């Protein structure tokens, strides 16, 4: 039983991103090139070499062994590379480096109801979806009744699915996928939809698949309880790398403690940003004064906000300005600026970070949204609204055991003060 069914060696996936990529990719550009070097454009490599495209490594050097019959959970914040990993496992896209060795048939469920056609009836969609997922017609026919019963859509079997409620739609879609019989089942965050009762049923089904039928299941989810209940082994990913691998409860505990609350997404994946992009903010971390990650800031504690950036290869940008803005309910509470806090000039090149040290964190308990503005060479380079969430808990700001009066929340910032009484 300890033979590994999935072996992953040094797996990496690189995506080309940024405006430059689009420029070198248009048909007009390709035609221009074709005149200069006929037929060179047919080779994908040459297309990639041309121009300065920015690279984004969604997955970097992943090594992993998964044994037959294991049920493995994969967790990590958005952009950690979980979905990319599943896409590689499912052969939807190919790795940039490294290899995966699969010793069994894989079925993946990366989305509920892939290929469903709204005009077709439930019955027709079962066959269509089943065959898209890799089932043979005979196999679908054999399991047809089971699928219908599981989805609880008996009455609507011959109704076009466009008339289904979203709950019915999800139930049907999951039911088809749940009756796949692969040796390896890959599931990505599909339980987030559907009502609680049906979710429970799905989880139960997956447990059966793993324990009773001895199949290997890989499950990506943000729902810790689901992972906790189902998986014996859990993998934590962060920025395309394997961060932690072990017993589920340990890994989840590690994940929750690490302050992943802060950055609600890997900033390098954010597309809702403005600016020239010669330098980009890649991440924001909340640290205590000795550099340990924090889940949340406490009023009165010393806090470091670390803003990581990357500058386009080979460029050095002068006249840097980095501004952070912390707001709640659209009201700004704190502004931090490299230009205000020091006379030094911020110069940007390569990868690096700026640490803002805020002694005696002045915010009251609550959730604050952090926006970031990065300027260099006189132009905005990167602007991201709501780049991260900074959760704050009330703390002993004044050393008096009290933090603030009732009703101050959302209205006040704490400043150190003292008072004296005279007469």
């Amino acid at each position, binding site marked *: 039983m300890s033979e590994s069914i999935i072996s992953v060696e040094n797996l990496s996936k690189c995506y080309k991103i940024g405006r430059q990529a689009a420029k070198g990719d248009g048909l007009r550009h390709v035609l221009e090139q074709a005149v200069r070097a006929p037929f060179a454009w047919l080779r994908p490599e040459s297309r990639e070499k041309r121009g300065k495209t920015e690279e984004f490594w969604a997955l970097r050097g992943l090594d992993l062994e998964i044994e037959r019959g294991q049920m493995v959970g994969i967790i990590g914040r958005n952009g950690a590379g979980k979905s990319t990993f599943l896409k590689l496992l499912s052969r939807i896209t190919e*790795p940039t480096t490294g290899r995966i060795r699969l010793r*069994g048939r894989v079925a*993946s469920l990366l989305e509920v109801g892939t290929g469903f056609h709204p005009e077709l009836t439930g019955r027709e969609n079962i066959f269509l979806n089943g065959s898209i997922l890799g089932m043979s017609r005979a196999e679908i026919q054999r399991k047809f009744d089971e699928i219908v019963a599981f989805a609880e859509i008996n009455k609507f079997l011959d109704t076009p699915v466009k008339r289904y409620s979203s709950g019915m739609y999800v139930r049907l879609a999951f039911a088809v996928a749940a009756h796949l019989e692969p040796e390896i089942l890959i599931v990505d965050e599909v339980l987030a939809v559907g009502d609680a009762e049906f979710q429970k049923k799905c989880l139960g089904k997956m447990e059966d698949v793993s324990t009773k039928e001895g199949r290997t299941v890989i499950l990506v989810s943000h729902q810790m309880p689901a992972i906790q209940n189902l998986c014996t082994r859990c993998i934590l990913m962060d920025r395309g790398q394997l961060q932690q691998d072990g017993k589920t409860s340990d890994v989840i505990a590690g994940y929750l403690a690490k302050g992943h609350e802060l950055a609600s997404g890997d900033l390098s994946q954010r597309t809702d940003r403005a600016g020239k992009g010669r330098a980009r903010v890649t991440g924001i971390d909340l640290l205590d004064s000795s550099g340990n990650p924090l889940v949340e800031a406490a009023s009165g504690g010393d806090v470091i906000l670390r803003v990581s950036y990357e500058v386009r290869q080979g460029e050095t940008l002068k006249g840097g300005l980095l501004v952070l803005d912390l707001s709640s309910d659209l009201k700004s509470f704190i502004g931090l600026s490299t230009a205000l806090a020091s006379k030094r000039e911020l110069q940007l090149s390569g990868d690096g970070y700026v640490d803002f040290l805020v002694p005696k964190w002045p915010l009251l308990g609550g959730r604050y949204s952090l926006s970031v503005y990065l300027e260099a060479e006189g132009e905005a380079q990167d602007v991201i609204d709501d780049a991260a969430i900074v959760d704050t808990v009330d703390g002993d700001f004044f050393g008096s055991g009290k933090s603030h009066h009732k009703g101050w929340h959302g209205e006040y910032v704490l400043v150190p003060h003292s008072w004296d009484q005279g007469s």
Partner: protein
Amino acid sequence: MSEIIIEQGRSERQYWRDLWRYRELLYFLAWRDILVRYKQTVIGVAWAVIRPLLTMLVLTFIFGKLAKMDSGGVPYPILVFCGMLPWQFFANAFTESGNSLVSNAGMISKVYFPRLVVPISSVITSFVDFLISSVLMALMMVYYGYLPGASVLMLPLFILLAFATAFGAGLWVSALMVRYRDFRFILPFVVQFGLYISPVGFSSNVVPEQWRWLYSLNPMVGVIDGFRWAILGQQNLYWPGFWISVAGVALIILSGIWYFRRTERTFADVI
């Protein structure tokens, strides 16, 4: 037990086996497209009859009545329809398969299957329309009392050639469309021009003899001439031209598969 190795540039080995394994998907996708095509239309499948019929009337009017082109003794409507049969098949298959990958983008970015299944199934879907038109053709021939000779037995060969042309061209366009949506605009042009530069509305006998080899570089010339020869049986087939067309089709289909396979692996990233 099957072992699969996933690496950059490596999926060749199991690819053709996978394609065989997914042959039912081919069928289901074609079946879906046929089922869906005429949903929520009032006259339904009648469209498959009306479209070629109207085009035939227009072409007969322009080339037969106005331009008074030589039909070699064949009733002009039959001459035109016989050319339209393969042309409409090609045009539909070309358009449908060209758009097929992009319109199935959701599937492509979420599920693995050999991508070749998608354009192939589009060609099959168009083939169903072709069959419907064929019935129409047969009825017309009965109406005009024009019965084909023994050469009609060669027809399957030319149908195959038409199939190959549509498939090869479809492969190119579908793969190119994934990256360059420009082809969405190029496609209708090709189809529109093609109707007039291919011998649909006229017989290719009107092309001067010394230029016929050049004319045959358009693979559809060989296909359409072949259809006319097999069904109407009157004119002799211009064989050099036919072989040029066959060679052209072979080139398109092989290069199409080559390009498709080459770019296929990145479809999910680009689409």
